[in-house]
C-alpha cells in the first residue's frame, strides 16, 4: 500500500517511517520541490510528494483564480449608503449643438485618482469645495436650470509621505489635478485646495 508506486493516503505512515501529513503540508505550501536530505533519496517520500502534488492541482487552480468584485454590485451598495447625503451636482458645458453635463462625482473620482498618482502622496480623498470657499463658476446643482457653470473647485485631503516639501507637493498636486480634470471633463478647475491632513 505504501510502496513507491502505491497511492498513499493523506494520513498514514509510509514504508520509510515518515508520516504523510507533513508531506501534504509541504505540497500545500508550495514546497514540494524543497526536498530534505531523507527525501532526496527516499522513493516512498518522493512518490508520495509527486502524487500529492498531482492531486493538489485543482486546489492550486482555485488559489490562482482571483475574481474581482463586480463593480456594479459594490456601486449599488454604495449608492444606498449615499442615500440621504446631498443631491447629485452637475457641471455644465454648453456648445452650439447642446450641452454636456458632468456629474460632480466624476470630478471627485478623477481628482482623487490624479492626486493619488503624485509621488509623495500616500492616500488622497477629494470632494467638491464647499460653498464659502470663494468659488466661482462652479459645479452647480442640477436644479438651478439655466446656470452654465463650466468651472469646478476641488478640495483634496491627503496624507503625505514624511520628509518632503509639503508646499511643493501641494503645487504639484494642484498642477496635476487641474490639468487632468480640465483635459478629461472640459470643466475649468478654478480652485484646487490641498489639505495635508497627516504625514507618515
Amino acid at each position, binding site marked *: 500500500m505504501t510502496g513507491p508506486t502505491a*497511492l498513499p*493516503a*493523506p*494520513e498514514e505512515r509510509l514504508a520509510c517511517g515518515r508520516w504523510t*501529513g507533513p508531506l*501534504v*503540508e509541504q505540497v*500545500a*505550501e*508550495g*514546497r514540494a520541490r524543497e526536498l530534505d536530505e531523507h527525501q532526496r533519496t527516499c522513493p516512498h517520500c518522493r512518490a508520495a510528494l509527486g502524487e*500529492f502534488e*498531482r*492531486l*493538489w*492541482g*485543482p*486546489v*492550486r*487552480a*482555485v*488559489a*490562482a*483564480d*482571483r*475574481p*474581482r*468584485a*463586480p463593480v456594479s*454590485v*459594490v456601486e*449599488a*451598495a*454604495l449608492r*444606498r*449608503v*449615499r442615500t440621504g*447625503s446631498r443631491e447629485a451636482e452637475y457641471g455644465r458645458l454648453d456648445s452650439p449643438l447642446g450641452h454636456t453635463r458632468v456629474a460632480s462625482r466624476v470630478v*471627485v473620482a478623477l481628482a*482623487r485618482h490624479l492626486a493619488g498618482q503624485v509621488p509623495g502622496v*500616500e*492616500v488622497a*480623498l*477629494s*470632494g467638491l469645495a464647499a460653498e464659502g470657499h470663494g468659488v466661482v463658476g462652479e459645479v452647480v446643482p442640477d436644479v438651478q436650470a439655466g446656470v452654465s457653470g463650466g468651472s469646478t473647485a476641488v478640495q483634496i*485631503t491627503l*496624507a503625505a509621505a514624511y520628509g518632503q516639501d509639503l508646499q511643493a507637493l501641494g503645487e504639484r498636486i494642484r498642477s496635476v489635478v487641474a490639468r487632468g480634470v480640465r483635459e478629461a471633463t472640459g470643466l475649468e478647475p478654478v480652485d484646487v485646495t490641498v489639505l495635508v*491632513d*497627516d504625514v*507618515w
Partner: protein
Amino acid sequence: MTSDGGVAHDGGTVTDERGSQIDRWLVRKARDGELGAYEELIRRHRDRIYRIALRITGDAADADDVTQEVVIQLWTALSGFAGSSAFTTWLYRVVVNRSLDHQRRARRTASDEPTEGDLVPVAGPERTVVAGEELRAGLEAIARLPDAQRVPFVLCQIEGLSYAQAAAVTKTSEATVRGRLARARTTLLAEMRSWSA
C-alpha cells in the same frame, strides 16, 4: 502565505504595515462621517470581501449579496469598531460571519438545496485537460468542506492570511487554525484521490 500560491508567512511586511496605516487614516475619516473616506476604504478591500464571500458561500449570487450587505452594514457599524485590532481583522470577521449566516439561511429555506448526489461528477485530475474543469473540481471540493475547515482554509490557503491573522479573524488560537487547516487539506486530498481512482 502568498495570495497566489498558498505559502504561509508568519510576519507582517512593510507593505502590510503601510496598508494598515492607510486603513487607520481612512477609518478615522469615515468615522467622522466622511463618505469619501469610506468609499476609498471599500475600494481598497472590495475584491477581498467578494472573494472571501465567494469561496465560503461557493455561489456567485450569494457572494454578490454578502458583498452588498457588508458594504452597507459596515458604514453604520464603523462607529462600533474599537480600533483595538487591525481594520482588516474586523472586516474579514464581518465578511466570514455574514457569509456563514447567508449560507445557513439559504440551506434552511431552499428546498432544492444541492445534495452530494446533485453535484456534477468531476473527472480525475489526469483527465482534466481543461483548466476550467480543474478549477471547478477544486471549487466543488472546497464547497464540501465543513464550515470549521472551510473558513481557515479560505483565509490561509486561498487569501494568504497568516495563522495568527486567521486566528484573530475566527477568534480561535493559532493551533486551532493549524489543526483545521491540516484537516481541510487532508480532506481535499482524499476527495481528489477518489476522483482520480
